[in-house]
């Protein structure tokens, strides 16, 4: 009954063809990490299926052999959600990238999981539509990955997350069956549970996405402030006035410096913070609200306000913000991108605490955040050549998450828990909370073979009495962390 990995590889090659199965170590190693590189694990086998049936076949083989498997899209995740298992199969959906149907009358499209997020928008744009979730990686991340992570983006303040824009998913269950979960079907909203489950409940093979009408007009302004506090005041004033902008983004002095060094975005010199506010919608609506926003920004003490006159000017305003993460590489040899959420109103206190933390530890922290929904992206800077620096940065990064939890926030707003933050889950949730989530897991994947070791620090084995939990998962020690 024992199936070895080489035997499994042979069976998979027979099912999918030699071209679709990778076992050469040199090639396998290129799959050892996703967008988060400090967790690495070389998969035993990589498969590149081209159809839902092939994925189902792979899952059935794995289930029969008791071998774990992990699904991966474009490999852009930032929490190690697609970190492979050294003793398992990595199922890569990058060859499943067909847009199967564009249904304009019903404002939806059907795509394969490997389709790139932005390609959906490109395909439907001629009809006046787009796919609303816009993670920063939208030019490369896959829709399947978006489903797994419930991806958001700068514009989810107004438009919501992937869960709000997916109408149905065909999935391969951990039993190897193809099942469609649809929002309109009777019964439990398993689609809702599946989206954002970080690949632990099954693998999606076909996604029906909702298409959003391209807004008639978009207005963007950039406001420069002396301090983050002043910028925060503007954010509160805008929200308080009943405006729901498409996006409100803020950057602090250090991240502005980095963006300037990288892409010469030309933000107002001497700014302690810049705020980007974007409104979209029907022209008369936006015109009225934009004037209000501009006034509020000025009243909050903006020393300069720039209004984008056209798409090119808008792109220039966004350029600095969009390049911020990568740009920080120009002012620091290494950095950790943190992702935490706080209630928007707690922004001033939390940022002050981060400042204090930074001063106390001597670790520089650059702040970039989705100010509208309190989603912080502190960039914790360090020099990896300096002994102990990485550990200190990691410590500061973790304490920022504690701050988020203290203020009633979350340890992740969009990057997911993955393998990276599983250990923080008990700080945010009780044992009973986590056990209850595990019930969903056990319903879908009683054998625990589907992306094990992610999201939950110490999974309860299915069939156990709730509340009884095993020690650390063996996998915890297996990832090569450096």
């Amino acid at each position: 009954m024992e199936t070895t990995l080489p035997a499994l590889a042979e069976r998979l090659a027979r099912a999918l063809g030699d071209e679709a199965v990778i076992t050469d170590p040199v090639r396998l190693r290129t799959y050892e990490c996703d967008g988060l590189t400090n967790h690495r694990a070389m998969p035993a086998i990589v498969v590149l299926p081209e159809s839902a049936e092939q994925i189902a076949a792979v899952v059935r083989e794995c289930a029969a052999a008791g071998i774990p498997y992990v699904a991966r899209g474009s490999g852009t995740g930032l929490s190690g959600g697609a970190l492979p298992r050294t003793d398992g199969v990595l199922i890569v959906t990058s060859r499943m990238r067909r847009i199967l149907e564009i249904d304009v009358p019903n404002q939806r499209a059907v795509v394969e999981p490997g389709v790139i997020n932005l390609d959906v928008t490109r395909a439907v744009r001629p009809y006046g539509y787009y796919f609303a979730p816009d993670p920063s990686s939208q030019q490369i991340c896959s829709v399947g990955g978006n489903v797994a992570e419930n991806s958001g983006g700068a514009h989810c303040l107004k438009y919501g997350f992937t869960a709000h824009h997916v109408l149905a998913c065909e999935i391969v269950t951990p039993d190897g069956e193809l099942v469609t979960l649809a929002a309109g079907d009777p019964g439990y909203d398993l689609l809702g549970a599946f989206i954002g489950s970080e690949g632990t409940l099954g693998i999606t093979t076909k996604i029906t996405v909702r298409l959003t009408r391209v807004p008639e007009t978009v207005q963007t302004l950039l406001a420069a402030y002396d301090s983050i506090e002043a910028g925060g005041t503007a954010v509160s004033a805008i929200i308080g006035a009943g405006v729901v902008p498409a996006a409100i983004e803020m950057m602090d002095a250090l991240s502005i410096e980095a963006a300037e060094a990288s892409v010469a975005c030309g933000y107002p010199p001497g700014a302690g913070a810049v705020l980007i506010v974007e409104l979209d919608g029907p022209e008369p609506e936006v015109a009225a609200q934009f004037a209000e926003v501009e006034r509020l920004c000025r009243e909050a003490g903006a020393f300069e306000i720039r209004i984008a006159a056209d798409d090119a000017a808008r792109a220039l305003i966004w350029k600095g913000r969009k390049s911020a993460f990568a740009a920080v590489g120009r002012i620091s040899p290494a950095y950790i991108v943190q992702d935490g959420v706080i209630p928007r109103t707690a922004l001033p206190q939390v940022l002050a605490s981060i400042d204090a933390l930074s001063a106390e530890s001597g670790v520089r922290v650059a702040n970039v955040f989705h100010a509208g929904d309190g989603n912080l992206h502190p960039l914790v800077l360090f020099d990896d050549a300096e002994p102990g620096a990485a550990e200190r940065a990691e410590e500061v990064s973790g304490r920022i998450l504690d701050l988020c939890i203290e203020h009633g926030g979350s340890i992740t707003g969009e990057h997911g828990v993955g393998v990276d933050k599983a250990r923080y889950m008990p700080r945010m949730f009780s044992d009973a909370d986590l056990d209850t989530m595990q019930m969903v897991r056990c319903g879908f994947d009683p054998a625990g073979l589907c992306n094990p070791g992610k999201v939950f620090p110490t999974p309860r084995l299915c069939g156990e009495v709730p509340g009884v939990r095993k020690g650390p998962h063996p996998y915890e020690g297996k990832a090569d962390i450096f």
Partner: protein
Amino acid sequence: MGGPLDPLDALAKVCGDVRPGEPEEGVLGVTPRFVAAPGTVAEAAEVMRVAAEQGLAVIPRGGETRLDWGLPPGRCDLLLDTSRLDRVIEHAAGDLVVKAEAGLTMERLAEVLAGRGQRLSLDVPLPGSTVGGTIATGAAGPLRLLYGSPRDLVIGLTIVRADGQIARSGGKVVKNVAGYDLGRLFAGSYGTLGVIVEAAFRLHPVPSAHAYVTTRVPDAANAHEAVQGVLHSPVAPSALECEASGDGITLGVLLEGVPEGVAARATRVADLLGPGADISHEPPAWWGAYPDGTTLIEVTAPPSALAEAPAATEGTAPADGAALLWGAALAGVEGCQVRWSASGKGYVGLTANAAEVAEVLARLRTTLARHRGGAVVRYAPEGVRTADDVWGPVPALTLMRRVKAQFDPEHRLSPGRFVGGI
């Protein structure tokens, strides 16, 4: 277990408001043995723990507005009444978030929120509905088009499990992807997975202006054309409704925003709908209510389903709007009323016998299946209900049963009320 405590006594030890059930409190005819109304979440947890020890089948009850939806329970030992769990725990107006207990009525919640110029963007089709019941039944109205249903607006949920454990998911921030989203799983779960005791919602500002634009259309083809015209235009409606009955077909579009914007957009919609369109501050009488009738069918029908040209209208009064919809699936049914939202949800109300309802259901399912839609009976008189397949096809039933078995292995939570005998 030696010398078990009487269930009523056991419950009374942990909850201040426990009594025997009355026949008029029956759930679709099944009278509860006991009714407990815990006043706190902790008390609710204790009640559930005792119910587990005593092996009691539990049905949560909120405002009793949809207790007659779905199927009768296999048994009902304990009605867990949430009416004393009626506090607004926290309204963080600056964060556009509210956290409330499950027994709070939607009206009371709306009052509190309106005090700060905010709202929970869910319609309340049935007055008196509670927060918990609204989530458990996934109830929503016309605003669903823009804002979605409870699954889209719940950002945190506290439940009491079958074993009495309190479990939370989500939190009180809108953007949050830590852990599984039990809020979405519990939305529309009809009390079969656990008892909802608290919920946090994301809120929206109350728009400073609104307008309803309505028009009459002669048939489904015109309705389809008008709906497509509005949907593909950039006016961004908050709701787009269609009402059809013996009087014909009416379309209604809700626009919300700032006064200047709403005025301009309403004019544009009126232009799109053509001559005869009417702009009003007040909703049409039928807006947001379920249609009349002793049987209520909920349909999933995306906009393209309106394009199902009526096969033929012989034998049907041409003015009967309902009869013109969905390939004439509703033709020949006396007094049939329809409400349909461009979000793809709709309701058919009719007063008919079992055979007629079965016929309508079959025709609707056949027609709507072409559009990946379906039809579910929400309520029906006893003789009619038992004669029918209430739910229709349930594609992922095996998974649902397995999830149910995890949450409620003894099958004590609203047993038999839901799909596939769950």
